[in-house]
């Protein structure tokens, strides 16, 4: 009611959706997933597409399947499903834990994993864990499907490798079975976005950190992999002191903003503290 008028289509398959988008010609098209980011934008009339293509009826975009050395998560799988799906909990626990911190139950029941990744809000909680786990993004377009690696997917503020006329259909997440995981979210009040968030997954062997993956939320225009921390952690004992020392590298290579919720120096400081906490919690 409050958005500007738009045409609405709700195709039943990915192919149909792609055809609808392709057929839109010059008209501006917006894809609607859970609507938890798009609807507020439309409501404030910050965007006024001619056509909204609702993916809500496309069953093939929803759900999780075992795909060998990875799990494949449909773009339209809701945050709430991500928190619960046994396959995700078993092989990519970090995603479940991060999804639990998104907003409130209402938003989690509507908002989708794919929508959050496609929207690429620097303060959103799902991109950093997906990046940390080395997710691959399956993008469908008029000329077929292609797969983009995590490091190439998030290209800029609110911008991804998804091109015009394309849809994110699936996210393949390499299995991290048996890894410890934690998402440390720091925000102002419970239902708001991260000021800084840290996604950590670690594999500990005999008290030593064998592998570590750390992703940072809101420490730049795109989610950032804290590679210096990861390198510093590997081979270290899984102790608080060692982890805190490694976490001191957390702001390396980051480019945090100063905005209404925090200044740059505070974000840099938070990244270190929260990284220490996230990794410590992940090693259990």
């Amino acid at each position, binding site marked *: 009611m409050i958005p500007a008028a738009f045409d609405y289509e709700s195709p039943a398959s990915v192919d149909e959706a792609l055809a609808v988008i392709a057929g839109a010609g010059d008209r501006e098209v917006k894809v609607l997933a859970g609507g938890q980011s798009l609807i507020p934008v439309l409501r404030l009339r910050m965007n006024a597409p001619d056509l909204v293509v609702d993916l809500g009826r496309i069953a093939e975009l929803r759900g999780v399947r075992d795909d060998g050395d990875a799990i494949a998560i449909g773009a339209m799988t809701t945050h709430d499903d991500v928190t619960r799906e046994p396959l995700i909990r078993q092989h990519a626990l970090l995603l479940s834990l991060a999804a639990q911190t998104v907003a409130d139950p209402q938003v989690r029941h509507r908002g989708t994993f794919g929508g959050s990744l496609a929207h690429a809000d620097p303060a959103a909680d799902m991109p950093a864990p997906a990046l940390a786990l080395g997710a691959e993004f399956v993008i469908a377009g008029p000329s077929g499907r292609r797969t983009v690696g995590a490091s190439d997917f998030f290209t800029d503020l609110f911008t991804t490798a998804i091109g015009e006329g394309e849809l994110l259909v699936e996210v393949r997440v390499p299995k991290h079975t048996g890894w410890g995981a934690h998402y440390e979210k720091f925000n102002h009040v419970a239902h708001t976005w991260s000021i800084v968030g840290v996604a950590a997954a670690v594999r500990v062997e005999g008290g030593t950190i064998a592998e570590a993956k750390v992703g940072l939320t809101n420490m730049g225009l795109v989610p950032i992999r804290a590679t210096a921390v990861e390198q510093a952690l590997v081979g270290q004992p899984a102790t608080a002191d060692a982890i805190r020392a490694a976490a001191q590298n957390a702001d390396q290579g980051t480019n945090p903003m100063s905005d209404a919720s925090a200044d740059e120096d*505070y974000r840099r400081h938070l990244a270190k*503290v929260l990284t220490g906490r996230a990794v410590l919690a992940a090693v259990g």
Partner: protein
Amino acid sequence: MTAVDETTGAKEFGQSRRRKEDARLITGRTKWTDNIVLPGMAHLAMVRSPVASGTIASIDVADAKTSPGVLGVWTGADLDAEQGDLPCAWAVTPDMKHPRRPAVAAGRVKFAGEIVAVIAARSAAEARDAADKVLVDYDDLPVVLDMNEAIKEGTPLVHEELGTNVNATWIFDSGEAGTGGNVDEAIAAAHADPDSLVIERTFRQQRLVPAFMEPRSTVVDPTGEQLTVWSATQVPHIARFLLAVVLGISESKVRFIAPDVGGGFGGKIHLSPEEVATVLIARKLGKPVKYTETRSESIQSAHHGRDQIQKITLAAKKDGTVTGLKVDLLADMGAYLGLVTPGVPILGAFMYNAIYKIPAYQFKCVNVFTKKVLTDAYRGAGRPEATFAIERMMDTLANELGVDPLALREKNWIKHEEFPFTSVCGLTYDSGNYEAATSRAVELFDYEGLRREQAERRARKDPIQLGIGISTFTEMCGLAPSRVLGSLNYGAGGWEYSAIRMLPTGKVEVLTGASAHGQGHETAFSQIVADQLGVPFEDVEILHGDTQITHKGLDTYGSRSLVVGGIAIVKAAEKVIEKAKPIAAHLLEANVADIEFDSGKFSVAGTDKGVTIQEVALATFAAHNYPEGIEPSIDADATFDPENFSYPHGTHLCATEIDTETGKVTIRKYVCVDDIGTVVNPLIAEGQVHGGLAQGIAQALWEEARHDESGTLTTATFVDYTLPTAADMPFFTTDMTETASTSNPLGVKGVGEAGTIASTPAVINAVVDALRPWGIDDIQMPTTAQRVWKAIQGKEFDASVGAKDTRDGSHEAAPGNGAPLWSGNESGGAQ
């Protein structure tokens, strides 16, 4: 829950009944204004200024006029001749500067969000679409946002025609009033006395958004003999009067209805520009019109609360006795004056002395215009600011003197046996028992245990530091004795009206002028009536919020509904019984003098002959058999004007944990023991306390309306204006002591604002208490994690500050040099 107590006849009073209005309110299946749909109804959208300060160079409505569905477009210039001047009811001083406030700006805009044009269309969406097509060119004028700047010579004026940015200067001085000493002398004496000290602090009350759940909405039907206005308002009666005055319509031609209203917190006390515009357009179109604001419009253009700078000077003897208090305020009016805008700080003027015996007091307030949306009443209105300042000062003084802050308070507070007590402001506090409430709170809180833990955490420099904050508050509520309001030059009285209609079937309709907007009046008032008339709770219907039903009333704000409106109901019920007695006597063939009324039954003294009130109601309706010379009616009404305010009080104790690595503040424990006199419905009272605490805590920790340097509100959505939810709240431990008010027959006091008034300083005192080892003595609200973290950067941690180690069992947990903790005795207490 409704067991009848046969011996006392008190069946309902004190019962925690579930609220009977909740089913419809919570499910939304009710008459929210926006749910109202009338045949042929048109919809409005407002075009609002994006700039805070400018002249309208040009305004082009051509495209909007031809936009689909549009019925008309009006600019401020089009409406100016008939839109009048939105009123302010409180000329706080004879020379108060009062700018004209148009519903729709013509020529000049004075805050971002001000309406510059109104669109009517067949649908709300079409009206919105057309609003986007109105092209307005503004020539920017300087913005004035900062109060200290605004009052400097040479600063551009918000209203040039006023010649100043000062709205009014209002002073209360106990020396001049004869209610106390001269504060400047007290301060000078303290400066001169080595055994005294003077503390000066400046506090900032940030701007807050009332953030009621239901955005404001208005429907106007101009087609009947009476113009009917439905509006999400707290004040249907006041609004009807004002609408008639502003538009020059006969009051009898206006019917104002507040259907179910989803919250207000003071934010819906007004006749709004939107209401006036909706009426004007409805009259022009000759058909019903609706306007509902969006949330962002609400945050930008409905009035804000607080926004004061408080300079406080306190003089005391080194033994802790306070000898003088001086308050210098700057209060931000915003760009215009709303219904009580200039009076809000003055509602606090009488409360800075709080529960303490302060011999000399002065309050001076300079009200300032800025180019921001206006401020006005927000839950507590003036009293939260006052309570904050004095409770922060008491903690500061205790710290300076090295004494326990509770002990210091007790040294200065009014003892139970000293009531009634006339304060330094000349108010008579009718009743109170600060000792009882405090000792209960201390017990529930485990004050000593937490002090001990605090000392331990300090000693080991724990990354989590603990702070304990105290707020022993009182407030004046139950607005208000009409004569007092008159003496303050307020534009109306403070009485309330009620009427009781006895239906033939014995059911009871109760009319009240106190129009609820979520408080639970229907339940609490039904409980009162059930007791008064001895009828079942279920048989009582409370009718409110419609000027055609309750023709007069002064509505709901200032914690007045029960203590004024509830008493009016009691008075009406007493009249019903008096009117019923002769008819009962007639039916019983007895003397009126022999008729007794108890628990719904009229009986003849000393006999078992009786007739129920329901039987009397039916007999009166039939009117076949009633005494000569009286009217066949037992309906009655009453107007109650209180003789005094009500003075609820309480002790709030808050423990906060501060994560020193991130600065995050977490409330570990919150205990409050309120004394609201006798309690009609403990469940409702507790609900009011919980909601109030949430709002007060939110001011301390999370909420702030912020503007950028151009005057744009940067917190115009709930993404940026961070309201807390239940997930952010601690579990509250609440309890009550009951010291009956002696100013009204029910012994009740107000509770609607108590939690908000008391909690903010409790939290900030706790935060500051945790930060004392860094030498920190104050911190601005909201105390965000970043603010706390930055405050302690580069500062040395001195564990010896404040609480001492207590492992030797000496309980020297009080700050400083081993002064005793508060004794916890009900009277007497610490030396």
